[in-house]
Every structure is written in structure tokens, then in C-alpha cells.
């Protein structure tokens, strides 16, 4: 509750600037190298081809859907972990982090093993809904959610833990039940972490390639997201490499636009 100062005089130490610049360079220079190799003559036709636009729109739609799914499942999961006894929380957190380690392709194989024809779960789903999950747009969303969920859960959990217990206690003594404490106090206070988590999750989801390729396949318009289109172009050798770069730039530009448009993702948006 400290007053927001005009200038606290606690800027980052000068010694931090050089490594920070190096870090930024490591992230940005490869992108510049990528841009510099783009073949400008074919760029426009590459990025406006029906296949590219279909893939982009599919990526945005599935990315949004899987991010929504992750928020719906991940925020409660983060909450349960944040409120579990220390040992349980420790174990749960490790479990949640494990899929991060898995090369996405293996994640895709695991999803196939779980939902595919040869599994019990797959059979149940087919019996229940008469459809198979695999090789559908739903599969894309599931694959993206599988790889992106850990990012959401872990960063939200972190901010839920640090979002002051004192305020929650005050709310409870004012008669607020768990739900009200959660929605009116805990989540708003954890908002910066939540927004960051959602961003990480969305970015990871629309960049997802390996798990989607295995679990959902590579059908244009149905499961061919941008990364798959890029991969497909890339595999085409020859001019394919150029159109892969063009498609990557399209994806990058879109991502930058989406990220910049998230106004809430700003310091002091809440506090």
C-alpha cells in the first residue's frame, strides 16, 4: 500500500545494462537475420496465398481456443496448488512442469497413445460422441493446451502465492466467502502474473508444432496451423525455404501485433 512514487530513484544498476543488452541481442538479432534473408520479391505472394491465410486464421482461432481452455483449467489448478500443503504443492508443481521437458513430438505421441484408436479412452470417446478426437481441429486445440498449460499454471501459481494473504484475511473478516475472496481480491491482486501467464500460454500455443504434427496431422484448413505450414514449406526444399521464411515473418508480425495490443499487460495496470 506504499504510495506510488513519482521516482523512487531505484533504477536498475548500471552493471545490469550490458548483460541486458546482450540478452536482448540474443533474442532479437536472429530475428533480424531472418528478416534480412527474406526474399522480398515473393514475400507478398507467399504471405497472401490462400494456404498461408488459412493457416494463420486457424492458428489464431485454435490459439485462442486453447488459451481459453488453459485459463479455464489452469487457473483453478494453479489455485489448488497454491493452497495445498507445502509437500503436496511441491509434488503437483513438479508434475505440472514435466510436460515442459518432453520434446513436443513425444507429447504428440503420448496424446495419440491416450486418445488414439488403440486406447481405451479413445474407444470411450468414440462410443460416447461417435467421433474421434484425433486428426481434427479439436486435436490441435488439445495439443496446444497440453504444451501451453504448464506455462500458465506455473506463472499464475507463483503470483497467487505472493498475492498478499493479509488482504484475503481482511476480506474474510468482512464476511466474504471463498468465491468472493477469490474473484474480488485474490485474482485481481494476482492480475499481473495472470496476464503474463496468459501471454506465455498463448505464445506457446500458437508456436506449437511437434505435438500438433503428430496428434492432429497436417491437413490444410483443418489442422495445418502456421508452424505446420512453415514446416511443410520448409520440407519442400528449393523455393520452399523462402516461403517458410516469409510465413515465419507473417507469424512474427501477427504475434507482435497481438502482444502489443494486450493493454492490460503493462506495469501498474492494477497496482
Amino acid at each position, binding site marked *: 500500500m506504499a504510495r506510488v512514487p513519482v521516482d523512487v530513484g531505484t533504477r536498475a544498476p548500471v552493471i545490469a545494462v550490458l548483460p541486458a543488452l546482450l540478452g536482448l541481442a540474443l533474442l532479437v538479432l536472429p530475428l533480424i537475420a531472418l528478416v534480412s534473408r527474406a526474399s522480398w520479391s515473393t514475400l507478398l505472394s507467399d504471405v497472401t496465398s490462400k494456404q498461408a491465410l488459412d493457416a494463420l486464421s486457424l492458428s489464431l482461432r485454435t490459439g485462442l481456443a486453447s488459451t481459453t481452455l488453459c485459463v479455464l483449467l489452469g487457473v483453478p489448478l494453479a489455485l489448488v496448488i497454491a493452497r495445498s500443503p507445502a509437500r503436496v504443492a511441491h509434488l503437483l508443481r513438479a508434475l505440472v512442469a514435466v510436460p515442459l521437458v518432453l520434446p513436443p513430438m513425444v507429447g504428440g*505421441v503420448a496424446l*495419440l*497413445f491416450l486418445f*488414439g*484408436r*488403440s486406447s481405451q479412452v*479413445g474407444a470411450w470417446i468414440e462410443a460416447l460422441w461417435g467421433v*474421434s478426437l*484425433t*486428426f481434427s481441429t479439436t486435436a490441435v486445440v488439445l495439443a496446444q493446451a497440453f504444451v501451453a498449460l504448464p506455462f500458465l499454471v506455473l506463472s499464475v501459481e507463483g503470483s497467487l502465492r505472493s498475492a498478499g494473504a493479509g488482504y484475503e484475511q481482511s476480506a474474510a473478516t468482512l464476511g466474504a466467502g471463498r468465491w468472493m475472496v477469490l474473484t474480488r481480491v485474490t485474482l485481481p491482486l494476482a492480475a499481473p502474473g495472470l496476464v503474463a501467464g496468459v501471454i506465455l500460454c498463448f505464445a506457446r500455443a500458437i508456436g506449437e508444432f511437434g505435438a500438433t*504434427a*503428430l496428434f492432429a*496431422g*497436417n*491437413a*490444410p*484448413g*483443418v489442422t495445418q496451423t502456421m508452424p505446420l505450414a512453415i514446416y*511443410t514449406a*520448409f*520440407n*519442400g*526444399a*528449393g*523455393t520452399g*525455404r523462402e516461403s517458410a521464411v516469409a510465413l515465419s515473418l507473417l507469424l512474427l508480425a501477427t504475434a507482435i501485433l497481438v502482444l502489443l495490443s494486450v493493454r492490460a499487460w503493462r506495469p501498474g495496470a492494477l497496482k
Partner: protein
Amino acid sequence: APQESAPPSEEPTVITVAAAASLQRAFGDIQQSFEKANPDIRIEPILYDGSSTLATQILEGAPINVFASADTRNMRSVQEAGLTAEPRIFATNTLAIAVPKGNPGHVTSLADLANATTVLCAPQVPCGHAAQELLRNASVKVTPASMEQNVTAVLAKVAAGEAEAGLVYATDVAGDDAVESIRPDGADEVVNYYPAAALTVGEQSTQEAAQRFVDFVAGGPGQQILARYGFGARAESSEN
């Protein structure tokens, strides 16, 4: 194949084809001419990926009607699961040396690979397996800088000038401006076979349509197109 096409007024039969990534450009053309020749069948879509990815997906129930593999081993795993009709070999492919534009390593033969920065496919994957065989036949010992998991990675390194040479399939270099290709001696002895098979799933009419596509690819019109993209003719050889 018997021409028992349904009346044109009816909905065409739709089949899905899964093809190895290296077939991408050739199958684009084949799809067009097949659909022109068979208006009652529509191919939607052709999925391209690594053969082993496609095989795994088919084993897990991917709704696919035709599988065109870049190697016989992956085809066999699907066949052994009882999912295919008899596969047909429809193309062959041989290896070529890819060098960066201008050939900075002055590579002209297999023997030069021993002294250049060379990348190969890993021996576990089909192109690597073939490369080992080719080098063994020529008695050349190469210590590769890297054993890539696929042709794409080999080509990327060569095109970027990181490697002075790489062994890839002739069809992969055809039409790539960033690399030049050299046909090594003995290439003809190490042949990679491409089998295709209709899958025994779905309705009878779909299975028949799938078989018609396989026959089209393995038959005259398909062969012409494949040849344009550098594939070798269908050799009636025993697969292994």
C-alpha cells in the same frame, strides 16, 4: 482398375492421402491429373509429413485412405497391423551429393566427402541408411560433422554454407537454387523404394477409390509426373 464410376450427379467419393514429405511437389501435380481423370473422386487433402509420423498416425486411427511412404519399413509396420491392401512400389530414388552454390569445398566425388565438412542423415533414418550403404560400396570413410534426422536439416546446412557437402536424395536437390547436385558413382546400386497402399478402412467404395489412386500413381500417368521431379522409374524389385 475397373471403371465403375458413380453417376456424375452424385457426390464424389472423397479420399485422404498421406504422403511422405519428399513427394510433396510431385503429388501436387498427380492430384490434379488424377482428379481430372477421375471426376467421381476427390482427394481431400494430401497430408505430408515424415513417413514414420504418418505410420504412427495411421496406426492410431488417422482417417487416411492411401499411404505413400518413402521407405518400405514404415509401410511394413502398417501392413503388419492388417490395415493395408497389397502395397505397390511406385517410385525409386537415389542419392546425390549436395554442395553449396559455387561448390566452395571443390567436391566432385564420393571420395572428396572424406576431406570436406560433410553432413549426412543419421543411420537410423532412411536417407542415412542409404548413405552408409553408398559410402561402404565405394569404400569411402566419412566422419560427418553431424548426422541430421532428416533431409531438410542436411539441405539447410548445405544451403547455409555450413557444410561443404551432404548426401541427400536426388529429388530433394532438384529445383533447389541454393545448392548444386552431383551424381556420385554407384548411386544406382543404392535404391530407395517408395511403396503406396490403399488402406482397408472405410466403405467399400472409398477403398476402391483409394486403390484406383494407388494404381494411378504406379501406372503410366503417375510415373510420367514422378519422373519430371527426378524420381526413378518403378523397378519391380523385391523390397527389403
